[in-house]
């Protein structure tokens, strides 16, 4: 995973393909030859599913739609237009890619279970439509002349080679994806879509690219399936079991890694086919029972799939006993100068139904200043941040950043313009290294991979985490997680930073470390807006305060003025206290 040498995985892919082909040379039984061909085909469908669903976390029950369209494109092109599958499969891939775009665009508006279930409907609707069109059972005609031109070979080993070639291709594509910003962006979407969007990742665009690629690969698998089996029926290619097969091989083998679908297919397909062949006549159904029990057992023992289970085990065995948690001393970093930019908010308002979360809020932040936003729970602080970074569209009012109106822009656009954000609850990507976590935030400002890595490394140095760059995020302390999230926001080279309760849950020492980093960033010129409950820390940090209560501005000014304001004391401590002070 992640950047690193590609030589070893590429060699391993070649080794697997050659080893499998060697097996094909030895096996003479035609039934087992067919099985050896089906394993890579289902692996390709699993790899395709993995690209759009495994890396992004958006589970699709509908990959049979692409598989089936691929199978029927190849079949119909051959029967109606005499088009060879050599061209039919590329055509099928184009159809699959188009279907991916057509299906993905409306469906990506949905999240979670709704997305999964909506995807279920596409192949099933297609199933009935293809039945109605009269394609209940279509056979590929035998071509006596030039069988090779029509991808019809007497020697079954050619099919094994073709399927393996397709699988190797799909694995290489997955590998390239995992090692690029494409893969990192999809992982970021899986972990936390809003945070990814706030880090400048255009989530819809990446998801669309993923499903288009996935659709093309699944269609290629379907096309080859038709060529190998010579018969296509709506149930066999659009049926729910085909979609389930894509899920099963991937989830069983391991989600979000190119090895998962291959491991899953290599174990499960032979298992179910052999059971079918050996026991199918004696006791129909027994293969389904054994298959189901095997799936249940593995999921109870290794809920995240075989690959991750084995990998975690190996790492545990290999790794020396964990060193006592050490925290890097925060060296006073000397960050490069930043040209901070100012923010002008005028008459901003947002309501949810009848609730006025933010009303008539106006304030100004000078370039390079630190503004502290305080207020009781429910005062509208986080809503204000969500308006500033584009999660919410304001009902009214204007937000001007560095002289530019940004109200109503999408979060990734606002991030690109130079507003970074950290969250109240830190969202780390636990299986990625600290550097990779930060890299996700660096892509906004860096067109090239090398620039992004440089920006991420620099951001880590600025928060004092450089020494932990290669550690897994899962092992970080709360303090280091906060610093890592700060580095992620800094990696995009923002000119204004929105920090939502950066000190929450930190011990006294850690608070001091974080304050030191924030001060040094401010000293370098960065404009900072902080939401915080810890008044003591804020008084020492912020240049100006803005107090919110019930969605509107209660007071604003220097910390000293605000702390003395009776209205503020009342809001925080109640009327009685205000009366005593007065």
């Amino acid at each position, binding site marked *: 995973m992640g950047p690193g040498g590609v030589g070893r995985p590429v060699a391993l892919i070649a080794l697997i393909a050659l080893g499998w082909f060697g097996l094909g040379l030895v096996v003479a039984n035609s039934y087992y030859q067919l099985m050896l061909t089906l394993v890579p085909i289902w692996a390709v469908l699993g790899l395709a599913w993995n690209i759009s669903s495994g890396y992004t976390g958006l589970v699709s029950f509908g990959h049979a739609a692409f598989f089936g369209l691929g199978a029927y494109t190849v079949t119909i092109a051959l029967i109606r237009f005499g088009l060879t599958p050599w061209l039919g499969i590329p055509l099928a891939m184009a159809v699959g890619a188009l279907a991916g775009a057509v299906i993905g665009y409306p469906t990506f508006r949905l999240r979670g*279970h709704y997305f999964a279930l909506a995807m279920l409907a596409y192949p099933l609707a297609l199933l009935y439509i293809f039945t109605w069109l009269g394609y209940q059972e279509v056979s590929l005609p035998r071509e006596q002349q030039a069988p090779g031109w029509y991808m019809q070979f007497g020697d079954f080993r050619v099919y094994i080679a073709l399927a393996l070639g397709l699988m190797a291709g799909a694995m290489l594509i997955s590998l390239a994806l995992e090692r690029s910003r494409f893969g990192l962006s999809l992982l970021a979407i899986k972990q936390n879509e809003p945070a990814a969007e706030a880090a400048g990742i255009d989530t819809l665009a990446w998801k669309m690219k993923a499903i288009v690629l996935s659709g093309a690969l699944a269609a290629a698998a379907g096309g080859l399936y038709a060529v190998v089996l010579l018969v296509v029926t709506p149930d066999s290619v659009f049926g*729910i*079991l085909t979609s389930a097969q894509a899920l099963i091989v991937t989830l069983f083998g391991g989600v979000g890694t190119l090895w998962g679908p291959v491991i899953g297919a290599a174990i499960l397909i032979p298992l179910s086919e052999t059971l079918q062949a050996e026991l199918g006549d004696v006791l129909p159904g027994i293969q389904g*029972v054994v298959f189901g029990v095997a799936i249940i057992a593995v*999921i109870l023992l290794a809920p995240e799939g075989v690959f991750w289970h084995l990998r975690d085990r190996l790492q545990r065995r290999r790794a020396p006993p964990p060193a006592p948690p050490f925290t890097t001393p925060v060296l006073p970093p000397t960050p490069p100068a930043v040209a901070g930019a100012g923010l002008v908010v005028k008459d901003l308002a947002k309501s949810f139904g009848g609730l006025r979360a933010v009303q008539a809020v106006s304030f100004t932040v000078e370039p390079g200043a630190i503004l502290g936003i305080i207020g009781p729970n429910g005062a509208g602080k986080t809503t204000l941040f969500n308006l500033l970074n584009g999660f919410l569209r304001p009902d009214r009012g204007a937000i001007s950043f560095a002289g530019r109106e940004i109200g109503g822009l999408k979060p990734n656009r606002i991030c690109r313009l130079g507003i970074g954000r950290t969250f109240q609850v830190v969202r780390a990507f636990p299986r990625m290294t600290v550097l990779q976590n930060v890299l996700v935030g660096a892509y906004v400002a860096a067109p090239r991979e090398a620039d992004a890595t440089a920006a991420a490394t620099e951001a880590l140095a600025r928060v004092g985490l450089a020494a932990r760059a290669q550690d897994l995020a899962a092992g970080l302390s709360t303090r280091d997680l906060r610093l890592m999230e700060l580095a992620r926001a800094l990696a995009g080279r923002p000119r204004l930073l929105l920090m939502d309760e950066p000190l929450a849950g930190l011990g006294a020492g850690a608070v001091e470390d974080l304050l030191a980093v924030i001060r040094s960033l401010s000293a370098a010129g960065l404009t900072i807006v902080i939401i915080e409950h810890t008044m003591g820390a804020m008084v020492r940090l912020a240049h100006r305060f803005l107090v919110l209560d019930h969605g509107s501005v209660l007071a604003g000014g220097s910390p000293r003025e605000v702390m003395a304001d009776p209205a503020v004391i009342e809001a925080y401590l109640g009327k009685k206290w205000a009366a005593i002070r007065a």
Partner: protein
Amino acid sequence: MTPLGAAVEAFLQALAAGIFLGCLYGLMCVGLGLIFGVMRVINFAQGDFLMLGMYVTFYLVTGFGTLAFLGPIMAPYVGALLAGPVLFLGGWLLHRLLMSRITGTRAAGSEGDGHYSQLIFTLGVALVLENGALILFGSEPQSLRSPLAARAWEIPLLYDPLSAVFLNKASVVAALLSLVIGLALYLVIGRSRLGKSLRAAADNPVAAIYMGIDVDRAHRLAFAIGAGITAIAGGLVATYHPFQPYVGFDYVIIMYAGVVLGGMGSILGAFWGGLTIGLVQQLATLVIPLQLQNAAIFVVFLLVVLLRPQGLFGRTAERV
């Protein structure tokens, strides 16, 4: 009979069929909706609970002759009602022994909140159940035709002495029973302590734990009740429809369409959703070819999900 008269007759006939079938779908959806709403787990084995409900009813009536003394008309309905407790117990055990390991409080915090493992787990259970049923019961379609299935009430249409709408007695009785059971469950969930704990566990599992509610127990009850309710619906379908071990997947899709249409987490909504699916399925036959009847369900389902993801009858969308 005028062409218009014939069209009206066909429409009324399809409308009646849609309503009666829809009530049964509604009851199935209530069972699934309870599980989906409380546990947030996509359960592919739900269709197989339905299928098991059919076979349990079948064997209670014919196999062991236990219910023969009730006579051919009463026996299937009593059998269907008894299938509920049987599958309640089955669902309870399945959750207690296996499912609880990967759902509820155990799943919180694991990658994707354990959705992946839950999905593939229920797919595995579905495979075991339907193939196990194939071994036990054989692949031949069975039917438990109630004598009522061969009788109909004839409702003459006033404007034309030659036309009439026929209401199959078995489907009318099944629909009425579905309505009563669905309503009873709605009242229980709405009024009782049990219902309150289920709703609390569904709304906010973490807060529910702090309030002293045993969330895993709530999940187990929801799962078992959901399995039992769907099994009763299966038994009622069996009184006028043939079935075999693989019917589960056909129905599971209809059930999910209904539950999503109705908006998740609402019993009444799930019932309306199922009813809508029944109506769409039957009325669609009037305007499009029979083979596209089911395609129509999915197109309607997609349109609703894309345009109104909170469901036709729900008020809130799924939290993200």
